[in-house]
């Protein structure tokens, strides 16, 4: 039985936890914000690596981004990915999710010319765009079956080309059976990720990364990428408005925290008349119970 040929799509993102907005101009202060591998992609990588641990095969990490996004691919290599491709071209600048899925789908088609692809993995979303639209978009463009928000893959049978995946929904888990090739977006928290070993890190630092420009990625049609290929346009960027008044802070003596608590509940109940009515009804009932005891 042959092992699966897997592509994992990854993205380099600014660590949004560390982004600050300039207090006066309201613009993003990018300086010094570290770029990281999108944390959700780690779950996609781990799922792919586990399949490889079990069945063998090969994993290619694929990333679209500026030249420095190579760092995200090095991280993927250090975790055990076999090969890495960076799709990078100025013509991609300003791509929205539709244009991005077009570029990635073309690159994957290119990769499948080397060897047919059985599985494509993505994270459930990125932490910068937060849309979760690119994975499903790539699936549609490649005509692959889409399995989104997958939390478990109990069966992957390469001989018959069948897969069973658990798809998370708000109310429960769908157990889906499907056929390869398919694209899977992986839910977070599905697995404890692995750490790169020192030899793997050294290998990752030395291994060449293939960099494809638009032509190498098989893209002829310039109207499908970058700003031209993006139906959405950014009309306005602005800082969220702050409520004018700050919280009313409750003063309290360090020795008597219970007075602060009592005062707080009084204020909460004053804002929620329904609860206040229930509270007084309860208090009356309690009083009656106490008397009857």
């Amino acid at each position, binding site marked *: 039985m042959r092992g699966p040929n897997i592509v994992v799509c990854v993205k380099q*993102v*600014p660590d*949004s*936890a560390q*982004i600050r907005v300039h207090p006066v101009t*309201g613009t993003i202060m990018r300086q010094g914000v570290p770029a990281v591998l999108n944390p959700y992609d780690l779950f996609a990588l781990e799922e792919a690596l586990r399949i490889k641990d079990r069945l063998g095969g090969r994993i290619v990490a694929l990333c679209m981004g500026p030249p420095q996004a190579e760092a995200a691919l090095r991280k993927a290599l250090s975790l055990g990915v076999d090969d890495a491709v960076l799709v990078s071209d100025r013509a991609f*600048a*300003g791509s929205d*999710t*539709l244009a991005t899925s077009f570029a990635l789908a073309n690159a994957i088609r290119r990769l499948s010319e080397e060897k047919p692809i059985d599985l494509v993995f993505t994270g459930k979303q*990125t*932490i*910068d*765009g*937060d*849309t*979760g*639209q690119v994975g*499903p978009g790539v699936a*549609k463009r490649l005509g692959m*079956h889409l399995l*989104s*928000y997958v939390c478990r893959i109990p069966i992957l049978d390469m001989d018959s080309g069948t897969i069973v995946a658990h*798809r*998370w*929904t*708000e*109310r*429960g888990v*769908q*157990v*889906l*059976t*499907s056929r390869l090739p398919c694209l899977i977006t992986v839910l977070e*928290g599905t697995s404890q990720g692995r750490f790169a070993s020192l030899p793997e890190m050294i290998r990752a630092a030395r291994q060449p990364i293939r960099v494809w420009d638009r032509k190498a990625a098989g893209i002829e049609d310039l109207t499908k990428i970058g700003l031209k290929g993006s139906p*959405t*346009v950014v*009309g*306005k*960027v*602005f*800082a969220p408005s*702050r*409520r004018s008044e700050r*919280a009313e*802070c*409750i003063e309290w003596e360090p020795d008597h*925290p*219970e007075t602060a*608590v*009592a005062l*707080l*509940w009084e204020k*909460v109940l004053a*804002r*929620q008349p329904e*609860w206040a009515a229930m*509270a007084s009804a*309860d208090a009356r009932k*309690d009083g009656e119970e106490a008397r009857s005891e």
Partner: protein
Amino acid sequence: MSEAEGKPAEKKGAARRKPTFDPRLAEYRGVWVFVERDLSGVHPVSWELLGAARRLADQLGSEVGAVVAGVPEEALDVDSREAIAYGADVVYQVGHPVLAGYRNEPYSKLLCELVKRHKPEILLLGATSLGRDLASSVATTLETGLTADCTELAIDRESRALAATRPTFGGNLLCTILTLNYRPQMATVRPRVLPSPAKVRDRSGQIRKEEIELHEEEIVTKIAQFLPHVGDQVDLALSEVIVAGGKGLQKAANFALLEDLALALGGEVGATRAAVQAGWIDPQRQIGQTGKTVRPKLYIAAGISGAIQHRVGMESSDLIVAINTDPNAPIFEVAHYGIVGDAVALLPLLTRAVRGRILPEKATPSGLCASP
């Protein structure tokens, strides 16, 4: 991926492209909502979207359409009539046995076909596991623009386009996104971001039964089983009281203090991304840009500094109470009441006060239809 990095080049692009308008796009009229249904009924986000669709359609002088699809049964008609009561003028109803349970293939096929047939100008879906899956596939097939997780929907006066505002950069900035030369203009909105509209029982509307060719043997993916969530599964988005904790609680064990208070209030426990990443609590309970959006009647933020990525998920709560040792913590900018102090010390006192019936335990009416 980032559709809205807000680079100057993109802004210039927007300005440059604004005046051109393809006349063929004028054929597209109407504001549509895809009504999300499952065994337990319609997801409330669909009604919230119908409220927004009503406002947009009134501004545009067009109709509100609702797509109601599923297996042919009585519930399909019931839900269609509900959609009218919540603001739809026309319900496009599709009944077919293959539509039992959501699957990407048949649902994206039917929605794409209905769009091609009736050409709506705007198509809205809930930002749920179903809505995101479906919206992405449909937008890609139709090659049109899709804006995720909008917090505000309006009509841009100049272009008559949908102005979809969403947080970007972890909520640090908002950006308004337009889809100018493509139709339909698509957007998703998370549950509880929009207020629920009033239901008008005697509203009139039309139910149109639509035929879509679907064949089970052509659908590759099958639902073998559905395993309902058991145990610790909550829908925070629908909770009326939320007691949330952040890094200021210092350790996982202190989350028990939150649970005590939540239990006393009949509420649920929430958490910040930092607390989730520290492994103190289940990711399902994360509130914020990368977690859930909530708007409970009472939100208690304990040991939460109030990073923007958290605030965007909870700032529309009716009443926000914050407890934090740092008087300058940004959480006090969104809270209504604050106590400057150590949440770990104060939480047990709060719980005791509630148990002492200063606040009733049955403060949380059950049900989905909280007043907006």
